[in-house]
């Protein structure tokens, strides 16, 4: 379900409305849009692919079962899915099913965020760093990850990192600009190769 389907033109709001009518194509489109970020977030929190896939299954089945729980006035569908994901991951960590718990690492990793160095070590060891994020300086990468994987707003990130909001906004801008230039460079290279 990575290819855009015939419902690709619908908004998230329309897709959730279609779920209420038991539309499998609508669920497929939502999965196509957000399956990866739900999986990536679970994987980062649990450090285990199989558990992360269980979370993905739980989250999308939950949305299918209870589409009305999503309230557009309280945030986007993406944010809603990430909240569900984090809650389910916390349940799993508390239940002792995860590798981290078996290794007696406290689930405080959720509430007391690891240092940047910890995160980078973790990811290099167990998860791997995506190429787009790897080009970023640690300070920029940190804010992008908090926004992307944790679904935090720039205000929340500022509070968490004890930084001025303007600094967080400018780090996000610098990070995306850098990635944008990287993408532009890649496209240029591809064109050069094909011409």
């Amino acid at each position, binding site marked *: 379900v990575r290819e855009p*389907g015939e419902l690709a033109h619908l908004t998230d709001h329309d897709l959730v409305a279609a779920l209420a009518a038991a539309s*499998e194509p609508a669920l497929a489109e939502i999965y196509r849009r957000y*399956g990866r970020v739900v999986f990536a977030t679970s994987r980062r929190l649990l450090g285990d692919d199989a558990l992360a896939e269980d979370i993905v299954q739980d989250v999308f089945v939950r949305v299918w079962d209870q589409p009305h729980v999503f309230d557009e006035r309280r945030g986007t569908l993406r944010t809603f899915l990430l909240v569900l994901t984090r809650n389910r991951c916390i349940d799993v960590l508390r239940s002792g099913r995860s590798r981290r718990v078996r290794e007696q690492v406290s689930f405080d990793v959720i509430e007391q965020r690891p240092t940047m160095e910890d995160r980078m070590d973790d990811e290099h060891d167990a998860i791997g760093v995506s190429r787009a994020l790897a080009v970023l300086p640690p300070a920029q990468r940190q804010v992008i990850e908090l926004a992307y994987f944790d679904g935090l707003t720039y205000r929340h990130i500022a509070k968490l990192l004890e930084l001025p909001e303007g600094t967080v906004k400018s780090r996000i*801008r610098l990070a995306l600009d850098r990635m944008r230039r990287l993408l532009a460079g890649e496209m240029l290279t591809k064109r050069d190769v094909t011409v």
Partner: protein
Amino acid sequence: MTAACTTELANLLPAFALDAVDDVERDAVREHVAGCLPCSIELAQLRAAAKAIDEEQPAPSPKVWQRILGDVRARRPKPAAMAEAGEPGTPSKPVTTRVKARVDAVTAADIDVLRLTSKAAHELLWIDTAEEAAAIVGDFVRTLGGAVVSHGANDPDCIPIDISFGSGTPVFPASPQLSMARMLLEESLPAVVEDARRAIALARERRRHNS
């Protein structure tokens, strides 16, 4: 070259592209971008960068989607499960009755499928031979985005139902697993195949009666 926008909202575009703004800001940025060309251009570029993060994340195994589908189908009964058409079965309600029962719970995509299902059922009323039924069902499969192939049912893309109906070399509907076409076929094809089998049986009876 388009002049850059100097409003405060323009500063929120990167956070907006990452969905890292609150609801009030989200609405304000949406409204602003709708009427500001420089911001709409910049936002498109920022979104492309944000999307690159998504594209680079590892995808869950394809089995996860299959598990999700299995779960949701078990939770909310869907009409015409694939197994129903695996073998010629007992007569069931005509397609039109089933269509009516579903009308309250369909989406735009379903409506299109229902229209095609009804069209196929109508055409099957007039067939005289299995070849004609095979042609109608084959068209139905292709219209939904599938293919009709003659290689064996070992191919995971094949749906193991012979839609030649004994009129020649066995042929099977095929569509990549997890594709939208596959999903639509799995839901709608059983009813059409069942109607085709009944239409062929009725045509044979007519021929016997006439001879």
